[in-house]
């Protein structure tokens, strides 16, 4: 394996451990088994994000995000298709559209999705921080349903997007017989990505040295 391949393998393992831990925490909350596929990880430039996610610019997605600070600067975002997330929440809360009335259901859905997103993002980031020995702080979670361009516009208000790289982790979660495709997207400054990969290389180097 080349160095790049090994680093990507390491990043994949990090994503796997992080998201699995998140799934475990989620299964505790929802009191149900959560099946999760091994995440597919890619690193892309900010401009390539929409294409990489294969999202039409008019599709509305449900997103939860937390701002990152500390050793690493950027945003960690979890994206779900709106319809799937709605059905999942209704399943979890045991409601049917007709029972709750549309207006109330919105608020309930948002709150539940925000907590689910919060658990996934913070659990995954915690594992990544631990494994790389980094101090990563997170903000309170935010929830929004918007198109990808609008989502990025909202985020761009606080960041210099030209200096952003994206790490995408794609996975499918299955809870209560409902399958939902979730994408955890880490939007990080170029410096942060370099730092992450430097730490990954260190980790691998130390491991190789120790194991020989």
């Amino acid at each position, binding site marked *: 394996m080349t160095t790049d391949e090994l680093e990507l393998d390491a990043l994949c393992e990090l994503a796997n451990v992080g998201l699995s831990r998140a799934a475990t925490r989620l299964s*505790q909350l929802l009191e149900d088994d959560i099946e999760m596929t091994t995440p597919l990880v890619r690193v892309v430039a900010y401009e390539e994000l929409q294409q990489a996610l294969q999202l039409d610019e008019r599709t509305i997605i449900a997103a939860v995000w937390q701002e990152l600070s500390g050793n690493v600067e950027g945003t960690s975002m979890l994206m779900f298709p709106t319809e799937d997330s709605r059905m999942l929440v209704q399943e979890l809360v045991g409601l049917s559209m007709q029972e709750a*009335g549309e207006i109330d259901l919105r608020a309930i859905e948002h709150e539940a999705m925000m907590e689910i997103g919060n658990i996934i993002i913070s659990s995954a980031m*915690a594992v990544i*921080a631990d494994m790389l020995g980094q101090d990563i702080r997170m*903000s309170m979670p935010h929830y929004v349903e918007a198109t990808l361009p609008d989502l990025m516009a909202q985020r761009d208000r606080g960041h210099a997007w030209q200096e952003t790289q994206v790490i995408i982790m794609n996975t499918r979660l299955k809870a209560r017989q409902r399958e939902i495709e979730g994408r955890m997207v880490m939007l990080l400054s170029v410096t942060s990505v370099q730092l992450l990969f430097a730490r990954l290389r260190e980790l691998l180097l130390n491991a190789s040295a120790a194991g020989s």
Partner: protein
Amino acid sequence: MLLDSTIKSLVDTLPLGVLLVDGELRICGWNQWMVQKTGIPAQQAQGKTLQELFPDFCSERLLSAIELCIKHKSPQLISQTLNRYVIPIPVAFESHDLTLMQQKVNVAPLTGNNGEALAVVSINDVTESVAKSHALAQMAKKMKSQSNHDQLTGVYNRHFLWSWLPPQIKQCVRHGEALSCLMLDIDHFKRINDTYGHDIGDAVLCGFARIVGAQLRGSDILVRYGGEEFVALLTHADATVALEIAHRIQQEVRQAVIAPLDAGEVRCSIGVASWTPEIPCSSEELLKRADRHLYQAKQGGRDQVVGSHG
């Protein structure tokens, strides 16, 4: 206590519960709201864990959230929706079957005076708004059942059928009129739903209801009886007239195009039964007879009409 006196006074005025928890899950801050709602004075809470203070305490989510806050400084949201409450606190007045306070909780990281990692748990009482939601939902449900129409297709519902039919039969007795009942069922509806999805399934139901309705006269009524089952009640119609109408309906349905299905893809089975002064019966019996004929139509291969005349 860890807070200096001004801040402590401020926290004591807040209309929400604030408690501080350390790395060993021991309470090191407990504000006035918590004292009032739990009846536990601050000195008693100090140094104890939540499990020690509340034997019924069982929120894994809260413990998990505190851990994430203390170890990784990650704020956590504990929704009322998925958790209902974290600390069992009985409400003063039971409202809408809610005996325990419903809580929306946030956990945030805080660094203590000696640099130690702490978690701030803030508890919002949302019982009233949850009770209101439940009340609204119940009201909507009640209104729906009291209404006489099927929400999807707009035709009458069962509720209306059973209030309309008995007096109608009484009238038939008085005036010596005939009344017929058609029980209609869309063939292989489940297959349509599975193949095309529920949205198309709904469109087929609406289309079907429209086609059937177009064949009825002003004094007749059409009812959505079940998922894909309808009942048409034809006034001043004996068995002959009813069979004629049933056959016409069957033809119209066969020829109809309900997008994206082609003509001929939607078919139905119809059972016909009639009430006449010579052979009277109750409302239930009339429907039962029509149902039996519908069953025969299904057994006979579907896409057909079965009545007493055979």
